[in-house]
């Protein structure tokens, strides 16, 4: 929005989130600078998905402030729309639109949300399909593609909206092992290009080589955050250590 470089792109201040009486997020403070790459990990049910889903308002937080590129998330629909234009999201289960061809999947939101012409949106769609290396699949339907290909399409679909930030919610955990790398490769490329990324993942190799910062969550709290080297080699919290022992032993 503005070129104030010192201001974080994402600011979460004392954010709480409840599902009924169950508290899924507790007092979350988080700042993400433009171009930063964050990896979030933690046990199942610790609130990782909930945290990133609050950032694009797929979940509504109950207390605290979330400010994205200077826009505070409230009930104001225009603000939510503005934030969603800046924030792309990639889901665990790809969530492609099953009744549309691949290229249509990439065009529909461009046409409806950004009011791009049909020709322009097709051009951009093809450009991003080439970037994720599957332009030849453009006229197929999602079900005809492998999981890895579908996830690459989902990434391309998010990129077509030219977002400032991309959120990834366990993008490789629904994939067969031999397809994980093709998706991680695309994500590494994005990171190299300077995209601001928040990535929930248990791919620790990816985290170590790509992340600027790793966040460990447990029971709705941010327990620890550190650079990869410090995080893996010298975790401060007992809970982090127990978690790392468990997933690295597999």
């Amino acid at each position, binding site marked *: 929005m503005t070129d104030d470089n010192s201001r974080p792109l994402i600011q979460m201040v004392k954010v709480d989130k409840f599902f009924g009486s169950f508290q899924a997020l507790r007092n979350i403070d988080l700042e993400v600078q433009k171009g930063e790459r964050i990896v979030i990990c933690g046990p199942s049910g610790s609130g990782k998905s909930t945290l990133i889903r609050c950032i*694009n308002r*797929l979940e509504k937080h109950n207390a605290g402030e979330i400010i994205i590129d200077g826009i505070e998330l409230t009930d104001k629909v225009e603000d939510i*729309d503005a934030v*969603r*234009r800046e*924030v*792309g*999201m990639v*889901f665990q*289960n*790809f*969530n*492609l*639109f*099953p*009744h*549309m061809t691949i290229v249509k999947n990439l065009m*529909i*939101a461009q046409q*409806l*949300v950004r009011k791009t012409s049909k020709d322009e949106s097709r051009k951009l769609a093809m450009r991003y399909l080439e970037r994720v290396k599957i332009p030849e699949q453009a006229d*197929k*339907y999602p*079900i*005809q593609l492998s999981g890895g290909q579908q996830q690459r399409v*989902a990434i391309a*679909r*998010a990129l077509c*909206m030219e977002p400032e930030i991309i959120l990834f919610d366990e993008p490789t955990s629904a994939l067969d092992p031999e397809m994980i790398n093709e998706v991680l490769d695309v994500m590494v490329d994005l990171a190299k290009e300077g995209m601001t990324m928040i990535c929930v993942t248990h791919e620790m190799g990816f985290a170590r080589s790509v992340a600027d910062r790793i966040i460990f969550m447990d029971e709705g709290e941010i327990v620890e955050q550190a650079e990869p080297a410090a995080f893996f080699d010298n975790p401060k919290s007992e809970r982090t250590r127990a978690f790392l022992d468990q997933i690295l032993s597999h």
Partner: protein
Amino acid sequence: MEVLTGWWDDYLWGAVIVAKVFAASLLLMVLFGLIGAAAKLSDNRVAQKIANGYTVIFRGTPEILVILLLYFGSAIVLTAIAQVFDPDIRFVDVPPFWAGTIAIALIVGSYATETFRGAFLGVKPGSIEAARALGMSPLQTFIYIRIPEMWRIALPPFGNHMLSLVKDTALISIIGLNETLFVAKQAITVTGKPFTMYIVVGIIYLGFSSLITLSVMGIEKFGNRTTVGAR
């Protein structure tokens, strides 16, 4: 076959009436089904209750009884209303076409309510979330994502609802609608050949239902090209 001479045109007009009842009741059935489903899915308690009452009553009562009650009931009500304006009126005749059409549309609409509701809930939440995350508005998401997925889910049961409508048309003969079964009864009193006359009715209804079944199969194939057919 000779006994049928002279009855062909009556059967033809009967068939035209079946087609008319089908067309009108189809429109109304979709309307009732959509309203019922919207009410059941809404947050409004009263609307939910009314829609629940509607489906319980119309799915739990014999269809022929619904037709009779609606026909005589509406006649009583309309007569009472008419007498307010003109006390000399004895009895208002409700056209059997409309009483019957509305009755079967209400009956089958109660099944369609459940079909449409199920189809709405059957759309994967993932698609909807993806659309919202891409910045599409609730209305855009509904039109471009939910409806295209919904009709594919609803189509097979909807085909059955259309068959019910056609078959229920025959029940309307009981209140004097001159569709094919009604024609057959008249023909039988003249010719004394019930089997032949009823077989003709059967063939006509079978023709209608085959047409519906084939159309639904065609549309289903078109819809499935993106899923099963595409594999």
